[in-house]
């Protein structure tokens, strides 16, 4: 891993906190994502800030519509159209110098250029540009919820795993195949050679999810995003997959961003937890703190609303009234206040709380019940960084265009050379 000596020569406009965040793999700062639709604008993320620490598992919990999957998709730059990032930064490997690591000397002809594995603001990258392609699938890999829909039914498992390896790692098909079989063995597939020849429909749900994990890990990513990887699986298979992920994480030391709605799964696998509600983080803490010392009314209600083994049968479950508001509506003030048992009229329905540290280190909460969460003056919707961001994005786009032009020139040159040769 690259050295992490403090890099003072940060370009202007880079966030100050990034320099303190050198143990982080991903540093998401004040991220806003919107989906302008016919029915109205869906504000999926409203200022989300978190970082994924190196070698740890960060859990993102929330109900449907909380924006937990959108955060992950924003990191990969695979937001579905018309969704787009409107504000914020996603720093990949913050604080690492550009020249830190050089990758793959003998890279295949048509793959993206060797991406220097170093600091990059993913939010500014072109979603179809070379730079993000060097990261996506290679440095940051992702597992999806539905293993059936995320595997191509027309290609063998082997084909699909090798595709990524051939694109990012090596041009040698034999090496790629060996690598693929080795990965399948590593995820506990019986008879990996045969599995690599089979098609997705020949495998069971659990096996497919293992194949997905093998595919995600085939390029030895620095970070793995697991978007509800066990939701579609049975409990026994879920236990297998969770155990497998825990093991692989220990062995490879990668970071995992684990997205789930299940408090049980969070308790079992995560080191740190971020609780999301309506596109905002309402509480963050270590897993121990979240379960034993939760502060936000939402977190507490959530914990109390799930049935626990050994709970008295006569005791009804705690109910959170109402349900998640529809995505087009905008809740003024604290997003949870319409359902909150502790909502204070005049405060919670007017002022958006800010995050304040509470209790143990790393424990933060956004709720007016706690000191420091009520801003002294009402904070307007942020607009300040937009200008600089726009400039940055324009510059990035221009750079990308130059690179493309250069590549096209090179291509033409080689084509001419080829034709001459022929």
């Amino acid at each position: 891993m690259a050295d992490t000596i403090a890099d003072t020569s940060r370009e202007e406009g880079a966030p100050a906190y990034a320099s303190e965040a050198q143990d982080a793999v991903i540093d998401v700062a004040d991220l806003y994502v919107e989906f302008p639709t016919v029915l109205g604008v869906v504000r999926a993320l409203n200022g989300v800030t978190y970082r994924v620490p190196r070698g740890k598992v960060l859990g993102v919990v929330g109900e449907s519509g909380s924006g937990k999957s959108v955060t992950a998709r924003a990191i990969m730059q695979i937001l579905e159209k018309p969704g787009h990032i409107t504000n914020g930064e996603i720093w990949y490997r913050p604080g690492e110098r550009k020249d830190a690591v050089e990758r793959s000397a003998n890279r295949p002809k048509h793959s993206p250029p060797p991406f220097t594995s170093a600091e990059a603001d993913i939010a500014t990258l072109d979603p179809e540009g070379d730079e993000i392609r060097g990261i996506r699938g290679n440095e940051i890999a992702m597992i999806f919820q539905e293993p059936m829909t995320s595997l191509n039914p027309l290609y063998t498992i082997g084909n699909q795993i090798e595709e990524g390896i051939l694109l990012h790692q090596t041009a040698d098909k034999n090496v790629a195949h060996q690598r693929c079989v080795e990965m399948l063995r590593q995820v506990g597939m019986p008879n990996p050679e045969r599995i690599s020849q089979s098609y997705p429909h020949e495998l069971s749900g659990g096996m497919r999810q293992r194949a997905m994990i093998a595919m995600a890990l085939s390029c030895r990513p620095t970070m793995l995003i697991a978007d509800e990887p066990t939701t579609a699986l049975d409990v026994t298979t879920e236990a297998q997959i969770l155990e497998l992920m825990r093991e692989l994480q220990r062995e490879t030391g990668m970071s995992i961003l684990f997205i789930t709605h299940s408090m049980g799964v969070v308790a079992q696998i995560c080191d740190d937890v971020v609780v999301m509600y309506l596109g905002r983080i309402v509480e963050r803490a270590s897993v121990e703190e979240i379960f034993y010392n939760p502060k936000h009314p939402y977190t507490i209600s959530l914990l109390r609303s799930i049935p626990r083994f050994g709970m008295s049968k006569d005791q009804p479950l705690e109910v959170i009234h109402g349900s998640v508001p529809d995505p087009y509506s905008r809740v003024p003030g604290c997003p949870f206040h319409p359902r909150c048992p502790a909502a204070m009229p005049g405060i919670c329905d007017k002022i958006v709380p800010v995050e304040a540290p509470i209790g143990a280190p790393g424990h933060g909460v956004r709720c007016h019940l706690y000191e420091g969460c009520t801003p002294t003056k009402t904070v307007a919707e942020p607009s300040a960084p937009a200008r600089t961001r726009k400039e940055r994005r324009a510059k990035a786009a221009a750079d990308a265009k130059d690179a493309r032009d250069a590549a096209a020139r090179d291509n033409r040159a080689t084509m001419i050379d080829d034709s001459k040769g022929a």
Partner: protein
Amino acid sequence: MPTEDMRPETPAGPQTELGENVDTKDSLDAPASTAVDDPAASDAAPPEATGQSEEDLDLDDAERESAVEELQQGLKTERVPIGDMLLEVRDLKKHFPITGGFIRHQIGAVKAVDGVSFDIRKGETFSIVGESGCGKSTTGRAILQLEKPTGGEVIFNDPKLGKIDLVQATRKELKAARPNLQIIFQDPYASLDARMTVGRIIAEPLVINKVMSGRALRDRVAQLLTIVGMRPEHASRYPHAFSGGQRQRLGIARALALNPELIICDEAVSALDVSVQAQVLNLLEKLQQELGLTYIFISHDLSVIEHISDRVAVMYVGKVVEVAPTAELFSRPRMPYTEALLSSVPAPDPRNRVKPKILIGDVPSPANPPSGCYFHTRCPYAKDICKTDAPPLREVADDHYAACHFADELELKGVNALPPLDIQVPTRPQMADSTA
């Protein structure tokens, strides 16, 4: 509202008229019905304006209770007494044919349900748990004759018809018995017709069975909506206007329309968000107490099962492998599969990170099940006898049945009760210190 006259076949008016009545809801505000006070009058603010539309849809308890009392009045006649045998399932089988070859003849069968037997008493919650493909949903559907069983008996103790075997029953008998047998489906988005108003959806069972019409029907729909905690005026809306939890409540209201004895909840809370799941579970429990309902609760979520059931049946590859009272099953399972299942549940407690008993391999195919005990291929305790002899489901303790050769010898581990959560949801503080 006179609920006694619900059962007798009131000669129903033409259905078109009914549909209209419920559909065009402008008539609904006029009859401030006996059961339901009109809560809209007191609530001036339009729900959407504040962004808390969902909150306003819930009723307060007083209104609901009066509706429940009303309904209870109507239930006094002709019910199976609590504790009596309600349903006896004997050797129930459902095989789906596999066809193939030159003339598409049957070359095999998927034995989705293969010889399932259990009894259900009135007023209890009987749960069926198992992995996907184990046949739990098919069992539920076969009981209701939504899938015609290949064999076996389903003896239902109908309050009017007496004990009838639903498998052998004629169409007429089945139609007479069906109002007592209802189902709530998993997906609240797929199970409500998007082109019918809520009122028509809930009224449909009453219309089809010609129970009531006109004003009585409207009142009944309003009463049912109130009972599931929704507002009577929602009858004129369409399902898309409601969230998942509310839709599931509409599904419950529809199931309750004919005063059933038995409701099959087929994964009824699985598709809901965590916070909404609790609402629906509590509602189901409350309705059971108030109306003396019997549930067959089909789920794969063991923590939900543990919370709601009185007795639990564990299914594996089309067979019931263990049946026991809930507490007993969870604390002292007698079948290794149950043990593995229980240990797989991720406990919501980071201090309780136990390594699950990992089951090797996958569930065998019900088209080609292994010999002997179906579980022997994955069982850590399997011996030679397991490969050849299928163990029968036998009573191993009081009211505890297990299908395992070594049920008496094995010391299997149940789940640990989690420490109770002693964090309270904060309540509204006194507004003294800070003001905005």
